[in-house]
């Protein structure tokens, strides 16, 4: 085994890439859960985003349009969940699980003609000046644009939740939907908007896999990324900056174990493959101190 084969700059650069889909899906789900809805369909929305993004990108030749299509696909699937759980009052857990299965099946159907094709190139973005800084430059400022967009979304979400009135209303709806209703806020409308945002983010995360990370379409290619995003939201205590930390940790261990596999470490591959999940959950459980939104997962019915 040869650990010197692991290049630290390359390691950190690919860590950011590996974390990006989790960040995107996680921040969407975080907003949804802060609004009091538990959507377990993240995996389904991600994979649908992955296939939608890939199809649009291949047909238009533009990866950017692909991402747009992925966001739309994810949001539509999330709104389906929204109508079922918020308007028709179905059980959120069961509906979320069904959404995942539905998304997996639908994406496999949609993507049948696209297996083995290469998508358009999504070029890295060498930021002038900053990108030329030694060590730091290649790690942080020579990534593809989606890495920065994901970070901007996290930053924007943090500011939105804690600094704006709309964010306050969203948190209030998630904390106590009966009280919010009593004060005259539209609980269902707020939740549908949060769900659409969450779906769009999950879709972007999925498309990042099919357009940047892999980059091609394979059935079931999200491989549990949606579930890990869900777990990170909980263990991050519903706080955006901790979600970022959890996602980077996960990305870091993922890349590390791939490097270790390549370096031929004498640990069975199965253990290495499960290590990112274990490490992320262990660390976040240890530092966990968050409190769930008061109305999370509860059915809201405006009774008089």
């Amino acid at each position, binding site marked *: 085994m040869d650990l010197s084969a692991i290049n630290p700059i390359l390691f950190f650069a690919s860590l950011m890439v590996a974390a990006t889909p989790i960040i995107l899906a996680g921040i969407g789900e975080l907003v949804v859960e802060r609004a009091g809805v538990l959507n377990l369909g993240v995996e389904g929305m991600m994979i649908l985003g992955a296939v939608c993004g890939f199809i649009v990108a291949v047909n238009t030749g533009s990866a950017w349009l692909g991402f747009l299509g992925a966001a739309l696909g994810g949001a539509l699937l999330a709104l389906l969940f929204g109508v079922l759980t918020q308007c028709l009052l179905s059980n959120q857990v069961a509906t979320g699980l069904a959404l995942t299965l539905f998304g997996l099946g639908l994406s496999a159907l949609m993507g049948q003609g696209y297996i083995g094709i290469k998508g358009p190139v999504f070029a890295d973005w060498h930021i002038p000046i900053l990108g030329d800084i030694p060590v730091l430059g290649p790690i942080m400022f020579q990534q593809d644009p989606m890495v920065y967009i994901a970070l901007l979304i996290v930053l924007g979400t943090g500011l939105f939740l804690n600094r704006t009135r709309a964010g306050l209303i969203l*948190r209030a709806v998630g904390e106590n939907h009966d009280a919010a209703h009593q004060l005259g806020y539209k609980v269902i409308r707020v939740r549908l908007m949060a769900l659409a945002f969450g779906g769009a983010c999950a879709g972007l995360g999925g498309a990042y896999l099919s357009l940047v990370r892999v980059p091609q379409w394979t059935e079931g290619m999200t491989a549990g990324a949606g579930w890990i995003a869900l777990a990170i939201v909980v263990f991050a205590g519903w706080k955006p900056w901790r979600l970022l930390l959890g996602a980077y940790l996960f990305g870091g261990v993922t890349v590390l174990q791939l490097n270790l596999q390549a370096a031929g470490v004498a640990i069975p591959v199965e253990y290495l493959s499960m290590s990112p999940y274990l490490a992320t959950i262990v660390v976040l459980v240890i530092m966990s101190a968050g409190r769930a939104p008061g109305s999370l997962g509860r059915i809201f019915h405006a009774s008089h």
Partner: protein
Amino acid sequence: MSALLKIDGLTKAYPAVIANNNISFDIQQGEIHALLGENGAGKSTLVKAIYGLVKPDTGIMHLNDAPFAPAEPRVARSAGVAMVFQHFSLFDALSVAENIALGMERPPPQHKIAQQVRVVSNRYGLPLDPDRIVGDLSAGERQRVEIIRCLLQDPKLLIMDEPTSVLTPQEVGILFKTLRKLSQEGTAILYISHKLEEIRELCETATILRGGEVVATCDPRTTSAGEMAEMMVGRVLHVPERAAGDVGPVVLSLKNMSAPAPNAFGTALSDITFDVKAGEILGIGGVAGNGQDELVAALSGEVTVPAGMIQLKHDDIGRLGVNARRKMGLLAAPEERMGHAAAPDMSLTENALMTGLARKRLSHRGFLRWPAARAFAKDVIQAFDVRTPGPANMARSLSGGNLQKFVIGREILQAPDVFVVNQPTWGVDASAAAAIRQALLDLTAKGAAVVCISQDLDELMEISDRFCALNGGQLSEPVAAQGLSVEQIGLMLGGAQQMDDAHV
């Protein structure tokens, strides 16, 4: 001068019941107007219609001579109607300032709200720190948050739904001073309560509802509490009687019992010591959130405590769980009837089974004895006059008072040696409350000991032999209940510190 709010022929029907039937009355400017009635008399529906939460079927309202039909609370708020809810519409995880911002139409930035909160709270003698998290506040402080939220919007009409049910006597005093000051400044107050003495002290006019209709209007300053109660209930009320029973040996004894807080918003119990003798009722007063739930949990066995802290007759039961304690004769009825004392979506028979299993022998070799369980549930229904078609009905279908009679009756019919009950008559109408208190007194007459935790001081004074107060997880020394004055009780409840910085 014309009335501030004129209500004319307001009717609201729900599928099973007419909540409001042709209600008409006026509220004058600056008037403190009481709305009286038992549970289910239609008070809540009426105020929800005024606040825009419920749309009446027929009838019109005028506010300052302009037609007033709010489609939603925003409209009512911008027209100058504000409301303080009975179950506070607050968000535990948010700060005071954030909670207040949520209740305003066009709130200024957070730091300005904080400043306004300080100004208004000093002006009306309601001290409050805008940066605190609401989950950490006492019930009285939570109410201040709601009141200040209303006052910041300069209301013409302030609706208060059962505002004093969770307050200490001192806090009630502060609240009344605030309300009188508001009324002098021209704000009308619609005050909903079923505490008659308070209404006599505070209000100028009272509208009394029964069965969804206005049955009387009176001046509470010149009408006696008894007369108003009869108008409310429609018949003469039965006052619980105490049968002279002998006080026996100590049956339950707590020695320096401590327990950590169960969660972030809970209260830790520290050094609780008391004895209860057979045949007596120990009343424990205190404002909600001072450790009542934790004390009940520690007594019932939901939370176990180290050995040596709780003794039942001759046995050390601190380490035993709920069912073991039940078998030994210690039964408990928690405060929250729906979801804690009873499972809402299970039948009354099933609910009877759940606590009666051991003492009523409702199972045999692991199999349930359904006929015996049904018979037990029927006994409870009959003995405690629970209004329900039968034991097969879901607990959820019962009204609050009926379910409360059921969950208390279920324990009493198991002939406990010690019965711990929390808020036995919370949210229960006057006649059901009287029946429950009578049942507690009857139980002690048969030689059981009762620990009654309540926030209703009148209730505790009526039934308890000895009284002590729970404050911040600590229990005061029990004293004889007879002859205690309201001031003494207030001091025991620890309202004194909050009084110092409250000046109107």
